[in-house]
């Protein structure tokens, strides 16, 4: 349809920018799936709802501290981490020793509860936390392409977060404890590692990263119940990379985003719905444990 007016090089730069932004969104969301699964072997199907809760946290703090946007953001980030801690302390802790399926079902119930609570507290009205913070979402040039301010924030924050997590997991005591608990919880417990503290930390980190993703999506688009569906859209990216690998989540997100953006542009936009799952099916056929996942964890997936 119609003649395309943009030059070939310009178009490719814009498509590359689109891929990087979408991959960052998926990577930031799927990070939460991986952190919880890697440490506790629980698949959290309430991740979209916890993103939603994190975004509503920003909306609330932005309403309360609209004159101090940085304070509002800091409070919202803290709130997201505390919510993760509470979810573990009040709910998931009781699932220790139960079957994996039971724990997954509890996360589904948690999701339903969170969805209901958000409607009761904030109604279904679309919200715009960015306006409350007094910030705009400027359009920034990158060569011949353009990127939104929030889109750029997605890329920078995702890169910083993955870098930070790498350092944390590799070089800090708590990071090493988390890896040990994920690798062999029984042995880790016998060596004196407090498993409940480690699991609580994993939930806090996952809700914190998911909360950031929710806040950024709410700032880029708007805050409403559609966030839950977006949370689930990143799940195939985590599976493609391997559910227990952060590097895998990054690679999976890049592959899914690349396929999605290119098919939207060159084939049919309707394919964007099925692309992540098509990539996932292809991966399950070739390498069921994902690009960087552990083979022995296949039965749990």
């Amino acid at each position: 349809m119609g003649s395309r007016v943009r030059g070939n090089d310009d178009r490719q730069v814009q498509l590359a920018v689109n891929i990087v932004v979408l991959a960052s969104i998926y990577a930031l969301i799927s990070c939460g799936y991986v952190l919880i699964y890697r440490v506790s072997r629980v698949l959290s199907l309430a991740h979209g709802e916890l993103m939603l809760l994190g975004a509503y946290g920003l909306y609330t703090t932005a309403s309360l501290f609209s004159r101090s946007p940085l304070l509002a953001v800091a409070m919202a980030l803290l709130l997201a981490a505390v919510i993760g801690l509470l979810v573990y302390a009040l709910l998931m802790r009781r699932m220790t020793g139960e079957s994996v399926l039971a724990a997954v079902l509890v996360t589904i119930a948690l999701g339903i509860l969170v969805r209901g609570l958000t409607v009761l507290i904030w109604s279904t009205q679309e919200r715009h936390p960015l306006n409350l913070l007094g910030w705009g979402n400027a359009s920034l040039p990158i060569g011949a392409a353009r990127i939104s301010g929030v889109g750029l924030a997605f890329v920078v924050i995702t890169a910083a977060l993955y870098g930070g997590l790498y350092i944390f997991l590799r070089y800090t005591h708590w990071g090493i404890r988390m890896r040990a608990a994920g690798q062999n919880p029984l042995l880790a417990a016998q060596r004196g590692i407090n498993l409940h503290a480690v699991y609580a930390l994993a939930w806090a980190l996952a809700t914190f990263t998911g909360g950031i993703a929710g806040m950024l999506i709410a700032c880029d688009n708007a805050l409403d119940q559609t966030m839950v569906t977006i949370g689930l859209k990143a799940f195939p990216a985590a599976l493609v990379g391997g559910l227990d690998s952060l590097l895998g989540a990054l690679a999976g997100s890049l592959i899914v985003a690349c396929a999605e953006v290119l098919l939207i542009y060159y084939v049919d936009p309707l394919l964007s719905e099925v692309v992540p799952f098509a990539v996932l099916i292809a991966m399950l056929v070739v390498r069921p444990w994902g690009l960087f996942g552990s083979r022995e964890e296949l039965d749990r997936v």
Partner: protein
Amino acid sequence: MHSRIIVAAALAALAQAVAAQDAYVVGVTGAMTGPQAGILAPVVEMAGAYVNHINGRGGINGKQVRLVVADDQGEPSRAAANAKKLVSQDNVVLLLNSSVSSTYAPVVAEAKRAGVPLYYAGAVCPKETYPPADALQFCSTAFGATLDSQAALDFIKRNSKEPVRLGLAGMAIPVSRGEIDYAEGLAKKLGMTPVDKEITPPPTPDYTPFATKLKDANPNWMWAWSPWFAQVRTYEAMRRIGWQGRYITWAHLNAEEELARIKDPDFYVIGTNAFFEDSLPIQAEIRAVAHRGNVKYPVTYLTEGYIVGVVIETALKNAGWPPTPQKVAGAMSKLKVDLKGLRGGPLEWTKDNHFRTRQYYRVWHWDAQKNAVVRVQDWQAIDVARQ
């Protein structure tokens, strides 16, 4: 102990049945939660507030009205279960559907099986309500398939000095895709050039990939018809990558508030409900009813729900007492409601037309000089019977 519980439950059920027999019972299956709830739940909440307002004034024909609301989350299976319960257990005399179009088929089946009139309230009007209408299906919702595209493209044509290169945006749901396909054909007949048509998924985390394709097709006008979030997020993504054309889209419940947020003179909305900038006396009443009913949405969202309340009141009043679904359907097929300026004319249903006889459209945008939402087209009528 068990026998006491059973007796208590039986008494409670009996009391509910007795109370129901002494009231008009109206059922709603609606997307009160879920992705589409933002534009549907306010309609049901305001209709509920209006029913409370009626009851506060002594009811209809001396009887109270009971509104039974069941959330279907926009899922067909839940809507089917809700409809079944409402017609068979609650014995409703009128069933409302305030949900997405994918719930229609199972709800219609249940309503027809029970012979209960089905009223689309806030949900898009299906073609069965257009002439020649199905005997049991009625609709007062502002937006109407095919008519909206006719009105929007007419506005574009009248406001373009240069040839129109039209971009189209919809969402991957049947009703939106159908409308955008229709608009594409209509644009060609009107001498416009449709340059691209993008259908976005419901929903997606980033609309920029779709916007990139649309922008590269170089439209000077865009027409989008889908749920609000898809319409406006496509527009915002296009602006962020530098598109500078004009964009017209459907004025959903939140349009007045959104125009004031977006503040772009080249972003237009077309709709059939008056905005609150009119400050009509009836809008003061909407505000009062919403306040008494403790409705938590902004008053600018509530016109549609208020109209639903007035339609229910008029239909039940004309059906008399005791009501039956047949009597209510009969009253609805000759219903006429004076909307007192909320729309361009009265809402009128006839035996063959359960949509409305004339559909009136206005267009608004943000005026940067006046720093206000401004009307750029007053009521333009389309004669539905001649379609």
